[in-house]
């Protein structure tokens, strides 16, 4: 099956009187890892939720392979039919289930038999190097291990796109680096495209070749990451550049 590509057209999202996203349009191309960078409260997570089909937009549309999958107030293709995996900011691990069951329940949408889903879940645990934790519960393992369980659950569905919603914030530099490296290798081996949402450009630069910057719900700039850093228009990339040049 050919991996899909996504097109966001003039997306707007508002909650009551509060507008979170205004007129955001962009393409997510298969095979091109993209970072969505911006300050907190800029609308990054909302954009990801709209892309995943967890929310319907107030205006605009989301297209998958040229076909509309979200329209204002309507979700036409449900999240699990979009061939996506997602790692949430708070990881969203179900605390009453074991690590293996967390990953296996994540495969429910695939309509697999029990043996198949167990096999596929174990494969994902091996890929993330946590097969030894299969029978432990999320509360019994470390923060870094929990991140890998969330990653395993997301990659177990063999997604075409992996959406990462600031999953590495709060981790120490070493753990963060190891996890990013694992995502990079997994994306090469499993051939999925990453969309990383982060407020830290440094986190994104090692993984994504393309970037977009959201500030106050508006798309300020997008393009190849290096080019954006060479002549930044957004506040966040300008600050990032200034700090990087100050580094001894």
């Amino acid at each position: 099956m050919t991996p899909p590509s996504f097109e966001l057209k003039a997306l707007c999202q508002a909650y009551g009187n509060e507008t979170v996203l205004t007129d955001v349009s962009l393409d997510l191309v298969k095979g091109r890892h993209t970072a969505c960078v911006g300050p907190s409260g800029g609308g990054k997570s909302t954009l990801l939720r709209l892309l995943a089909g967890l929310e319907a937009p107030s205006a605009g549309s989301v297209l998958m392979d040229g076909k509309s999958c979200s329209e204002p107030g309507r979700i036409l293709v449900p999240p699990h039919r979009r061939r996506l995996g997602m790692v949430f900011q708070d990881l969203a691990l179900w605390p009453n289930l074991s690590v293996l069951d967390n990953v296996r329940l994540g495969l429910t949408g695939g309509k697999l038999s029990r043996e198949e889903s167990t096999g596929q879940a174990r494969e994902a645990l091996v890929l993330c190097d946590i097969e030894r934790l299969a029978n432990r519960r999320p509360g019994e393992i470390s923060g870094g291990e929990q991140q890998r369980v969330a990653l395993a659950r997301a990659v177990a569905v063999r997604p075409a796109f992996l959406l990462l919603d600031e999953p590495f914030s709060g981790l120490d530099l070493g753990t963060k680096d190891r996890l990013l490296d694992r995502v990079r290798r997994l994306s090469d081996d499993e051939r999925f495209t990453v969309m990383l949402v982060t407020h830290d450009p440094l986190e994104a630069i090692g993984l994504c070749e393309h970037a977009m910057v959201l500030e106050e719900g508006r798309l300020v700039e997008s393009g190849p990451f290096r080019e954006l850093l060479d002549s930044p228009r957004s506040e966040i990339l300008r600050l990032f550049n200034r700090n990087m040049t100050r580094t001894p």
Partner: protein
Amino acid sequence: MISPMLLERPGSWRWIGVTLGFAVALVPTLPLVWRAAVATDGFSVGDAFVPALGNSLVVALSVAAIGWIVGLPAGVLGGLYAFRGRAILIALLALPALVPSFLWAIGWSAAALRIGTGASQALTGFPGTALAFCGMAISVVMLTSLATTRSLTASQIDAARIAGGERTVVVQSCRHGATTAGLAAGLVGVLTLSDPGPGQIHGLRTAAGEMLTSFSALYDFALAGRQCLVLTAAVLLLALPAIAMAAPRLSTQLLARQSRAPVLARNRRVSRIAIGLLTLLAFLFVMLPLTGLLLPLLAGAEILATWNALTRTGWNTLLYAGGAGLAAVTFGIVMALLAGRSATLGAACLAAGLALFLQPPALIALGFVFVGSDAPAWADPLLRSRLTVCLALATRLFPVALFLGMRAWRSFPSSWSAAAAVHGVPARTFLRRIVVPMFGFPAGTALLIVGLLATADVGTVLLLHPPGQASLPLTIFTVMANAPETLVASLCLAYVVAAVMVLVLIHRVVGRIVH
């Protein structure tokens, strides 16, 4: 496939569902209101009722004031500090909230009799009635303040500690919990308006006592209905402004999600004060009346008669408690899921739930009586059976389960549903595998609390129980004036032991939730 995101989706359907839920809960009261509205012979409530209502109001205000002044610091100290015997002292002080008030009234009365005629005379009327209720008020305010203090984050407490030491921590925590504690005290005060027990035992004419006389001695259900409506109006008049003002604050303080729970501090000086205060309260409001209640056992226990009463009423007591608990928990949790995460709807649910909870138990029970008296025989299983008792009790007590359910649901991150939706987990599977197991502990706690409150509600059982199907507390209530005091003491002991066992269960359940 229904998406688990439905559980998180906002919309007007939530308001409609919640409104319908509360409307269903109010249906049993309609016949009573209707009869009063169409009554042609005026709206007389009897000559003695109005002065009795005045007495009740004085008792309610005194109890609320004492409960607030004493319960708030006790709860704050219990919520902030680790000290020897903390769990036992808190559990002991929780007992008055879970045991019917008339048992404490009997205890005080018996203790005063042992001390001497002077003490007995001093407790007659208002002082004895207020004292019997004070234990409950202090208990509820203490537990509320404890919960409010525990909802402070560790960093908030640390900030206060850095600013001015332990004194500032305690003062700021008291200020933080003062409104909520005040509301809890006020609510207990309002609850006393509907409770006839202590007034009857200590010889004070109260509104609830007059109502009890109307239906159990005069068999004038119409008069009881009118009195009940006046009492309801008084309750609403007193409670609604306080609820409307405090519900949003309660909603954020008690339903909020914690970021990092505070660790109990160890401070020798404050711990001594805490131990002293809690021990004094436990002695005054639990041990002293309990001693009075159980002292007659020294003359010998009526084991056979108690056993007979237990075998006759035990099953019914369990059935009423369990049936009411199950119905209340089911309804309360469905309502909690309907309320979702909306702050406005949460506050509205809390306000409506509190208003319903505070109604005189007789309001719903008399409604069932009126419907049942006109209903055909085929409606007996629903309107004139033990199921009726369970339903009537659950109708008034389901807000307890609603409150615990809302608190639990808001502590689950919304990303759980989102993750399930991304992975195509159907709503049914998500409910069965994640939501129901996660609701297990709060539902269990709610079941036990509602069960105990249902057992303590003698009025509803008195009005609705089928002939020969009384509960243990009702049996104690009906025999306490005429039976030998050794028998009353033996029955009371059986009840208190059962309540303590349930308390231990609650402690275990809550302990597991915290764990």
